[in-house]
């Protein structure tokens, strides 16, 4: 029997993976070929989706992007024996895009059947938790501290320190809350992991629970991710039945229950305290800190809040040791980050690499330039609150501190590429508009400031008192930065001011010329 892999990842489905799987099944039946179709996660080469793989004695051979209409042709070319075809790429693991990565967190994603515990075990799954179950809580925390892991949700706070706070505090009920709100444009790593290797997140959360003595956990997944919600719920049920969750995990006497909560379309609920409110069934209004959630978090109890990527890095840290993980990376940015190359890009996808890789390498070597074939003009890194960088800054290494020095942020590792048709004044306007739409409304500089921001930028675009309004915009940004409770209002000035500083020409266009330019398009 031949095994054929057709991803079930939402991105693959979005370009027809289900149709391709159905076509392969019916073609095999007609040709009386005995095949088994596995719906795996994505390998992350999203530009090749749907990427079909066939298991051969030499390894898995890749074909993509496959449309349902290509299937008959693939069968006649002998793709079930890994034969050549114009959509063929040879052995998947030899494709440079894939081969040049350093896959730690995503080591299994795309390889296994996401809902098979056997596959998970065969590929090193639960090794970390098994080890953790034999360790003291403080030793687990120590291992995570040693790894140098920092929060992948955006702020880069050391995970070990957060865990230690929750570990050291006395409390009958503690919680683990996983932030899977992934609202940043240009990011999909959390989604891919949840759909492609859900047990990895469950394992990471369980290790966290064992480390600090928490017995309940919540995964807060945005409603825009229906596939991830479904896979996570199924995976939790399977883990429960196989005693990797529940009241006696693998006979250790340790208990951990896990629940999925679905968001309801509010970007601000990615902010950790807003997320807590939302899990409690309330409006997602940001809380004042202190108290920090590690001390008074979910339902007022000590809570670890971590991003999906932070928690999914933990199993390998426990399995191979903190030092193993720490040996990847540069400066104080240790380990790997799952970069997501998105937007106007020829070869978009997920690239897991150690810190230190540059924007240029990611968008040129991996990305292959823009999808439109025009020159790259700007890249927004770190989501809607991240800076717009011009090509002159593409050589800054991916490193939390280096990026901060360049008035930018790594954030959740998303890169959104724009070609030379982008109007940066419009992008700056959108940053303000987005803040106005998504503000939780608690503080005035964010709620009202963002609306004023849109108006001021409209005036700048219309060449109405331009110089005065540019000064006004700058003042407004200072007010928002200084007077906002959280990074929603506090960081919206980052994309705005980076656009003004790095692309001043777009804010000084002559209105008359702009009309001519528009008319010429």
């Amino acid at each position, binding site marked *: 029997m031949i095994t054929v892999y057709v991803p079930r990842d939402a991105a693959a489905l*979005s*370009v027809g993976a289900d149709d391709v799987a159905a076509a392969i099944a019916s073609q095999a039946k007609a040709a009386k070929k005995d095949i088994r179709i596995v719906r795996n996660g994505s390998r992350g080469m999203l530009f090749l989706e749907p990427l079909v793989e066939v298991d051969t004695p030499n390894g898995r051979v890749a074909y993509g992007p496959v449309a349902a209409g290509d299937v008959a042709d693939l069968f006649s070319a002998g793709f079930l024996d890994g034969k050549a075809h114009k959509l063929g790429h040879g052995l998947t693991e030899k494709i440079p895009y894939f081969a040049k990565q350093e896959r730690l967190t995503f080591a299994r994603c795309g390889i296994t059947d996401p809902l098979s515990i056997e596959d998970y075990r065969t590929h090193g799954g639960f090794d970390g938790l098994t080890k953790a179950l034999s360790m003291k809580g403080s030793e687990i925390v120590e291992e995570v501290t040693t790894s140098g892991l920092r929060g992948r949700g955006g702020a880069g706070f050391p995970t070990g320190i957060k865990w230690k706070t929750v570990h050291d505090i006395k409390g009958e009920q503690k919680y683990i809350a996983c932030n899977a709100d992934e609202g940043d444009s240009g990011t999909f790593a959390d989604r891919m992991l949840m759909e492609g290797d859900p047990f990895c997140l469950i394992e990471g959360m369980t290790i966290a629970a064992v480390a600090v003595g928490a017995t309940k956990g919540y995964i807060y997944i945005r409603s825009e991710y229906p596939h991830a919600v479904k896979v996570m719920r199924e995976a939790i049920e399977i883990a429960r039945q196989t005693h990797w969750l529940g009241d006696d995990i693998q006979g250790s006497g340790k208990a951990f229950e896990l629940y999925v909560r679905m968001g309801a379309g509010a970007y601000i609920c990615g902010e950790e305290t807003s997320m807590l409110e939302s899990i409690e*069934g309330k*409006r997602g209004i940001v809380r004042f800190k202190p108290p920090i959630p590690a001390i008074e978090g979910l339902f007022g109890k000590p809570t670890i809040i971590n991003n999906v990527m932070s928690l999914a890095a933990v199993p390998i840290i426990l399995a191979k040791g903190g030092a193993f993980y720490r040996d990847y990376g540069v400066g104080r940015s240790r380990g790997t980050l799952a970069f997501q190359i998105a*937007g106007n890009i020829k070869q978009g996808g997920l690239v897991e690499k150690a810190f230190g890789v540059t924007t240029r390498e990611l968008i040129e070597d991996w990305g292959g330039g823009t999808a439109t074939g025009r020159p790259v003009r700007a890249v927004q890194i770190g989501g809607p609150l991240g800076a717009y960088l011009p090509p002159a800054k593409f050589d800054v290494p991916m490193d939390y501190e280096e990026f901060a020095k360049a008035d930018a942020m790594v954030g959740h590792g998303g890169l959104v590429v724009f070609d030379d048709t*982008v109007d940066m004044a419009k992008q700056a306007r959108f940053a303000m508009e987005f803040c106005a739409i998504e503000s939780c409304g608690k503080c005035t500089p964010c709620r009202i400031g963002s609306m004023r921001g849109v108006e001021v930028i409209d005036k700048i675009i219309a060449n109405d008192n331009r110089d005065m309004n540019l000064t006004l915009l700058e003042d407004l940004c200072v007010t928002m930065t200084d007077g906002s409770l959280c990074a929603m209002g506090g960081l919206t000035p980052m994309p705005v001011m980076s656009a003004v500083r790095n692309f001043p020409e777009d804010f000084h266009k002559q209105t008359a010329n702009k009309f001519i330019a528009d008319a010429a398009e």
Partner: protein
Amino acid sequence: MRNISGVDGDSQGSGIMGKKTPRRPLDIIDQQPAASSPAEIAALATCARHGNKPDELLEILHELQEHVGYVPEATLPVIAKALNISRAEVHGVVTFYHDFRREPAGRHVIKICRAEACQSMGTEHLCQHAEQTLGTKLGGTSADGAYTIEAVYCLGNCALSPAILIGDRLFGKVDPIRFDSIVAGLNKEAAE
């Protein structure tokens, strides 16, 4: 009558929520009929399925909307009573989150991503096209009641932009031509 469904509102066992019990300013709801319309009955049943736990309010609203198509005004007092929270709290949640609709929507809700990655691939143009072909602005419903179009901000499909989501079906690389063929496909499904 403290709790129509008979399940104790304190049974969620979370301390902080428990403290909320006295906060019931809208005693007037007690005089209203328990549940009369199908939507109100559905609301009551949904709350009961969630053990009438106030922390499951978002889940309850999602399920209710899935079932009824939107969150009718008349269900708010019913939910408030079942969960033992104030009507203002339920109202606050329904209005805070973009997902919850207070009016019926079209048979299909098409969510078009308007965030940055999709902008870089022309989602603005796609939005205009959708508005023109369906004859309604973003946020509105086509005259025949078939389609509601809404703006969303990122569907996690940013390497295959522009992206749209229809129910649980995600589509990538959606240009105006593909948009038309997707809509034609939905029309065909409806006709069958």
